């Protein structure tokens, strides 16, 4: 069980209602959230083991390949899961999903005219190691149009889901790529009020982590809520 978590900074996260992201209008609660102090219900959380996840699950170049590699720019996405105290979050589940290199999702509800790639599923998962490191191999997803305004395009992005050790740390976000001009124009990105919080969602090109003549690399650290140090208390549990 985690000790109490730092309060989530609701001015850093996007508000529930963001006028320019139209779908949020009818899906945003109008009443204030009820703030509750953490109890076991919030400060415990599920754990996952290596026996449930296959080694190939973090390799999107291979985990759905039928006849060969998928089309697209080969990339490595790697980084660490840390908390606000910069402590690594070990053995936690990281799940990703994304469009293929043409901007098409393998989903029965996606009807974009870009082609499905027979060798690309578009999802992966892994557990962080004992120091919080994770790593995926995939193709760089393409930008794609979506119905917000009549000419809205999502920047290339990878959806990321992370657990942490407490259910109240649960987080889903999206990772963007350095240098993408669509980031500044995206109503979903721009739901976030603080530019520094947006910058934190943009993965940096990491030439040191590339595999020469094979794959380019991007580095993306994920920060989960930190837990309160109980240094000055008599109950040091979870510290």
């Amino acid at each position, binding site marked *: 069980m985690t000790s109490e978590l730092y309060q989530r900074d609701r001015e850093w996260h996007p508000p529930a209602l963001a006028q320019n992201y139209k779908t949020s209008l009818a899906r*945003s609660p109008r009443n204030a959230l009820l*703030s509750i102090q953490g109890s076991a219900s919030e400060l415990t959380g599920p754990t996952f083991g290596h026996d449930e996840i*296959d080694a190939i699950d973090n390799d999107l170049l291979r985990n759905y390949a039928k006849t060969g590699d998928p089309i697209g720019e080969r990339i490595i996405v790697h980084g660490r899961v840390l908390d606000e105290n910069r402590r690594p979050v070990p053995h936690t589940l990281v799940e990703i999903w994304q469009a293929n290199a043409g901007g098409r999702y393998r989903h029965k509800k996606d009807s974009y005219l870009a082609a499905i790639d027979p060798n690309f599923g578009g999802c992966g998962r892994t557990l962080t190691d004992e120091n919080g490191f994770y790593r995926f191999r995939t193709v760089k997803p393409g930008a794609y149009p979506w119905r917000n305004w009549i000419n809205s395009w999502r920047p290339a992005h990878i959806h990321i889901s992370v657990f942490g050790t407490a259910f109240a740390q649960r987080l889903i976000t999206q990772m963007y790529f350095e240098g993408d001009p669509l980031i500044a124009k995206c109503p979903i990105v721009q739901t976030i009020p603080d530019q520094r919080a947006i910058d934190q969602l943009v993965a940096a090109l990491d030439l040191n982590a590339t595999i020469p003549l094979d794959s380019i690399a991007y580095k993306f650290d994920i920060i989960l809520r930190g837990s309160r140090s109980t240094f000055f208390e008599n109950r040091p549990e979870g510290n």
Partner: protein
Amino acid sequence: MTQSLDYRKETASQTAGPYVHIGLAPGDAGFDIYAHELGHDIAGPNAKGQRIKVTGIVTDGTGAPVKDVLIEIWQANAAGIYPGQGDVEDGFRGWGRVIPDFESGEFTLETIKPGEVVGRDGRKTAPHLNLWLVARGINVGLNTRMYFDDAAAANDKDPVLTLIEQAHRRDTLIAKGDGETYRFDICLQGENETVFLDV
């Protein structure tokens, strides 16, 4: 000037989008990729306690079902113990995921009824499921709880339910049922808007 506190900021949330199933429930997106898809079995085969089935619909502010929602459940076992907190039955995960039927928008989850949990300061909390909702149009995942209408005495003393200022809104967190099957609808916005929690 002062010294920097040197904390890092939590990564900002972004919507799970319409294709959340690809990542978190690929079988439901229409393809099988993992040998073992996570989240299908909350309680496992050995859990003690009453087996229950909960159905419901998540609706938006216009009253339409939110068919692309994904709900995660986190709960204690029948003895009120969360996995990781103490001994639970072999195979009891306490966590799972459900998505609604793409046509009707109705979700169904099967589990066991949790016990009373010891909360802060040793105070008992009424039996409840912790729920977390993500979907297109939801910018930060929404936390709420589902309580049981046949635990009225415990609900009346529950530290979270009693914290809800407008007493009539407490009912939005209480499932109605017969001890085995329960109904729990979630309303994102509007007259019967569910109470959501900042946890």
